[in-house]
């Protein structure tokens, strides 16, 4: 066995230039059927939300008091109607706009703010690092759901407030990952070499630190989108996010709670959308992580 294994390992190095790290990550990702299906579902949901005004069969705000809570498959109401007689399909399509925005926006903001804080703290080290990381520890002392609800509850309901609360929840988490990766890279020989050869702190951060740190933080951030979607819709579900009559999956789920005895299937639909989106982001993030795990 051993000689064969050796001969495999000793294959001559390819003469042409490889496709690079990100190219190989992309290739591995493309060969992962689960991640690809998840990505397709995400794209489909995003496209449906973006093009909702063109593809929705009805006005998501226009209700009818005599056509309330129609079952799935009613002519003219493909997915039934809600407690105010509004077309469910149209509301689910439109609902994706706010739900996706509220779920993804906090992660993007937290990615920007959290990685800046983490990289600066990790690169500078010393007392700045200690103070920053101890402050972050305080936020880790709150379970994320509790912190999100507490902040939203104190700030009051609303789209902006719910984005602010969720961003505050995710910034410490991303900052901690960014700090730990940066601290590891800061002590590497090539950073030392760059510093000795006269590179400024800014150049080192831009070339060596960012180049190596952004990948892991990005993967971590994608894994947060799933949580963020569930939390954002959860805030609206509690009445702390989007206000009626705006279509949003969490809020729709809340207002349809009264219908669980008459139209259980219709009442459960908004949750199916949240579930589908959240699981797709989770599976895609898992695929991305395993595609990035093996270097070279």
């Amino acid at each position: 066995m051993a000689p064969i294994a050796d001969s495999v390992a000793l294959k001559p190095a390819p003469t042409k230039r490889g496709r690079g790290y990100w190219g190989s990550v992309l290739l591995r990702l493309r060969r992962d059927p689960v991640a690809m299906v998840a990505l397709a579902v995400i794209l489909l949901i995003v496209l449906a939300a973006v093009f909702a005004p063109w593809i929705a069969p009805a006005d998501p705000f226009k209700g009818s008091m005599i056509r309330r809570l129609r079952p799935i498959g009613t002519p003219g109401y493909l997915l039934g109607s809600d407690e105010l007689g509004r077309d469910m399909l149209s509301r689910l399509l439109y609902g994706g706009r706010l739900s996706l925005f509220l779920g993804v926006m906090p992660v993007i903001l937290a990615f920007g703010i959290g990685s800046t804080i983490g990289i600066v703290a990790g690169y500078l080290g010393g007392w700045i690092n200690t103070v920053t990381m101890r402050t972050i520890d305080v936020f880790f002392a709150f379970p994320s759901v509790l912190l999100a609800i507490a902040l939203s509850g104190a700030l009051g309901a609303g789209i902006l407030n719910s984005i602010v609360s969720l961003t505050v929840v995710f910034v410490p988490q991303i900052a901690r990952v960014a700090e730990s990766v940066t601290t590891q890279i800061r002590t590497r020989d090539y950073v030392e070499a760059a510093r000795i050869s006269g590179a400024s702190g800014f150049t080192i951060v831009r070339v060596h630190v960012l180049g190596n740190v952004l990948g892991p933080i990005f993967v971590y951030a994608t894994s947060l989108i799933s949580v963020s979607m569930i939390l954002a819709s959860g805030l609206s579900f509690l009445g702390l996010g989007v206000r009626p009559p705006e279509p949003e999956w969490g809020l729709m789920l809340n207002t349809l709670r009264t219908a669980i005895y008459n139209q259980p299937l219709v009442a459960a639909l908004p949750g199916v959308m949240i579930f589908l989106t959240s699981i797709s982001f989770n599976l895609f993030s898992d695929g991305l992580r395993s595609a990035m795990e093996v270097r070279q």
Partner: protein
Amino acid sequence: MLLYILKRIVYVAPVALGVSLVCFMLVHLAPGDPLTAIMPVDATAEQQSEMRTIYGFDRPLPVQFGLWLGKVLTGDLGVSIATGRPVLGEVARAVKNSLILAAVATLIGFALGSFFGFVAGYFRNSVMDRLASAISVLGVSVPHYWLGMVMVIIFSAQLNWLPPTGAGPGGSADWRPDFEHLRYIILPAITMSVIPMGIIARTVRALVADILSQEFVQALRAKGLGEWGVFKHVVTNAAPTALAVMGLQLGYLLGGSILIETVFAWPGAGFLLNAAIFQRDLPLLQGTILVLAMFFVSLNLIVDVAQTALDPRIQRA
């Protein structure tokens, strides 16, 4: 060991102080004065400023924080604006109910999660492994408030097997371990157990796979130890980490139970928090969050110490 515990407590103290600062600031984050919510609309400016002096809101923030912290340390969390009762009593009762629910949910989640995790870790890449991985992904991706609704739809609305809401018959506010109350805890506990189940299954699978690939397992097998004997070694090695994850999950569930408690109208801390938010009962909001966060901090400390005590490999630095 005692020295280690002392060190951990010293380390936790500033975190606890920070947590109380965040809880204190929550009230001041709210738009306007914390008093606007409770003052009658026709109160004159004079009456308002008098009220402000009574509650101490006219003093500088650091002074207010100091006074508040002093009261908190003696167990005085203020008085609920909505009910006029001391916050501590309200919170203690609600937390007890939450704790019961979270503990049952954690136990169910731990039992099922470790089972799936063990099977998946033992039979890597088998059908069971795929199934266990699927279950753990489902567990962490499902919006649990929706799952709660689905459970109510299936088991209460359709099958009429279990009560949909409440902690006991006749709107019982306290949970007791008898048959009637037991029926009420089943749905919320199972719903809640899905989250720790997914996370524990994932952790245990990784742990078992890692342990089985280590050389000492090969050595155990080589010296003729049966599968059962090897299994016992795997359990002893996986237990400290798995138990630590379980402990932390209990804390997450206690703090994150608000959505599930709202769906099932469970009279716990989450339900109380919800009421406090919508009645703008700021002392109650502040007190509930403080108690839950402090509980989480203490739980972290306990888990940390217990893990060190259980696992001789961890250095007591």
